[in-house]
């Protein structure tokens, strides 16, 4: 226990010394975060120095082993670091799909060589990854995907199309599900890794209703992928993907904490007062009902994390968290729009810094679709937790 106290003191001091004031401001959008990669540039010196200080100490991926660029922190230490960072509102030094998605997959399924090479690049923010799962027509039914890699001995030739590849236009490499055996639905998929600059790879951003384009369509036209660039066994990529989907749902489920689960009634009242008005009694009632659900959900998030640590959580519980958390977040933004009134309808005004309320509200509508729709989550809960008969 004493060791942990020491660690906390040291961490606090280190953060004090290394996290610039500018990096202690709330993250307003993805722009405020450093995503790394070849094409990346720092938005400010503060962002640069904060990232470099963390990278040097392994704090871009604190829980990864030192050998792979992490700090090798144990669960307790990692928790302390999180607590101390959120205490001063420190921004994450580096965000990326490499950290959230590919990293965990490599840690579980990768070869030692892959871990040293790829994880290191991720930890140092050198390579930015994107994810190639969904395809037009597949949607929730992932395994129905068609992108095919033809075996040419020492390499595959990949042809097909992916959709919802996040920031594919800014990414350096892609981790990608490719069908390598047409005769076997589940055991005919390989989890491939390849460079987005490989000839034959093209991307097209998708304009969303929010007016932003965080996703792309990505096209593969005779793309050569060396045979050694896959995670897990050939034709066993679905195991890796399933593992990652579970992991993703845990992550999306908000893991408690964060705005998503905060109560909003008091804030909305201040907001209304600023606009020179009062909360409608009826809106006030809705806000109270929401706060009840939000505070309950955040207790659930805390409980869920505690249970995961000791393996007490039902393996399908992340599906419940994802379902409830995303539905809650959509409701939250509906209420924020109502409280904001006509001002929050503005699409590009300065007062709304370019329509943050309305664009943010529209963005949340994807929460219950991406990473497994609410309908799929409910199917999984009823089958795997309630064990209702399946058809």
């Amino acid at each position, binding site marked *: 226990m004493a060791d942990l106290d020491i660690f906390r003191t040291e961490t606090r001091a280190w953060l004090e010394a290394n996290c610039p004031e500018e990096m202690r401001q709330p993250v307003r959008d993805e722009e405020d975060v450093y995503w790394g990669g070849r094409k990346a540039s720092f938005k400010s010196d503060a962002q640069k120095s904060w990232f470099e200080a963390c990278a040097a100490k392994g704090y871009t991926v604190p829980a990864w082993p030192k050998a792979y660029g992490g700090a090798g922190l144990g669960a307790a230490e990692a928790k302390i670091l999180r607590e101390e960072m959120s205490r001063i509102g420190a921004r994450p030094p580096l965000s990326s799909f490499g950290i959230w998605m590919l990293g965990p997959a490599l840690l579980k399924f990768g070869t030692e060589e892959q871990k040293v090479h790829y994880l290191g690049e991720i930890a140092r923010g050198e390579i930015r990854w994107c994810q190639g799962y*969904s395809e037009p*027509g597949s*949607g*929730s*039914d992932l395994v*129905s995907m068609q992108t095919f890699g033809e075996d040419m001995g020492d390499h595959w030739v990949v042809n097909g199309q992916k*959709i*919802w590849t996040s920031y594919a236009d800014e990414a350096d490499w892609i981790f990608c599900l490719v069908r390598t055996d047409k005769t076997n639905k589940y055991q005919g998929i390989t989890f491939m890794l390849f460079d987005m600059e490989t000839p034959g790879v093209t991307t097209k951003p*998708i*304009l*969303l*209703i929010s*007016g932003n384009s965080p996703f792309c369509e990505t096209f593969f036209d005779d793309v050569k992928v060396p045979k050694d660039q896959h995670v897990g066994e050939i034709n066993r990529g679905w195991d890796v993907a399933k593992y990652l989907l579970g992991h993703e749902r845990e992550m999306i489920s908000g893991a408690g904490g964060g705005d998503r689960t905060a109560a909003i009634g008091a804030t909305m009242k201040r907001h*209304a007062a600023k*606009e*020179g*008005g009062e909360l*409608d*009694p*009826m*809106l006030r009632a*809705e806000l109270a009902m929401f706060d009840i659900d939000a505070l309950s959900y955040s207790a659930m998030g805390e409980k869920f994390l505690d249970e995961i640590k000791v393996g007490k959580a039902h393996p399908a519980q992340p599906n419940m968290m994802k379902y409830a958390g995303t539905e809650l977040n*959509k409701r939250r933004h*509906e209420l924020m*729009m*109502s409280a*904001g*009134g*006509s*001002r*929050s*309808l*503005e*699409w*590009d*005004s300065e007062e709304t810094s370019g*329509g943050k309320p*309305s664009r943010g*509200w*529209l963005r949340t*509508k*994807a929460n*219950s*679709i*991406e990473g497994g*729709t*609410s*309908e799929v989550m*409910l199917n999984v809960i009823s089958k795997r937790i309630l064990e209702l008969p399946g058809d």
Partner: protein
Amino acid sequence: MPLYYDDDQTMLADSARQFMAEEGAIKKQLRHWRDAGCKDGFGHELWKQFGEMGFTGILVSEDDGGLGMGHVEAGIVLEEIGRNLTPSPFLTSSVLAATALGQGSDDLRGRYLPGLLTGESVFAVAIDEGAKHRPERITTRAEKSGNGFKLSGRKDFVIHGASADMIIVAARTSGSDADADGITLFAVPRDAAGMNHDAVRLVDSSVATHMVLDGVELDGGAVIGEVDGGREVLNRMLNAGRIGAAAEGVGVARGAMDMTVDYLKQRKQFGKLIGEFQALQHRAAHLYSEVEISRAAVIKAQQLLDADAPSAALMVSVAKAKVGQTAGLAVREGVQMHGGIGMTDEYDIGLYMKRDRALQEFLGDVYYHAERVAQISGY
């Protein structure tokens, strides 16, 4: 009076449906003007066509050259506008402004109505002060000056404010901010000195303004109805606008629902049409039921308004709130059931969600009207 359309109304509905589906279609109007970054957010050509169809004068008396019809008929046009997300000044000009002008002097009616009927003029109304609809409280002041008035104050959410040839402004000529009495309505011409508009594009691609009145000078002829007696005209105008917005909301809900139900019949997942999944079937059926009920509430309120029944005000708030709930459900279910592509600008369902949001807010949202329902009902 039966709660379905009589023969004349059915004919009007047929022609409105056909006209709006062709001329007012999303691609032809909403997307066209939006992508062109049009400063008005709607097309003046279409507005003139509204005039040729006679839509512009539905609520204008026959003596003034209009059709002298009622809110049921205005609602028929608005439902088709909602279904096609057709951007136009119909609601602000032909419903809100026309209702107020109907209470105005011969001179005012003669000055403004002809341009409205032909679709050459566009009118706006300036009521809200602040981000929420609170017409009970009006602080914009109109001081007597000479034989006229001098207006000072700030108005928000003035739809088409920057495009309007005339703006109806609710101002206070006596009493204190929260008084029911002491309100006067003014018809303010676009070129009035001291009137400044800060135009903002809204989520549904319509354009509203924050409007500042800095000692705007008007002669007595600009007064609509009686000085200090504007509350009654204002309420009449608001009720017309609210049930109009509700009727448009029904169209939005039906448009979103139809588009979604069609999608359920085409999209396959897990080797099935998603419309075969009972969970989606039940949600769609529930939505259908809510849409039908909302539409009945709107028609009932329109008939009560047309009959000048005392219970009209209650039913208008019931309908505006009910439609708000239902249209919100329709667009949320619409986007969710469309899945990923529902989030793309390429598909229209997201446009319904955006329009619904702006319409919800216009002239009082669900919460505002629920509060009114409680107060009018005496609890």
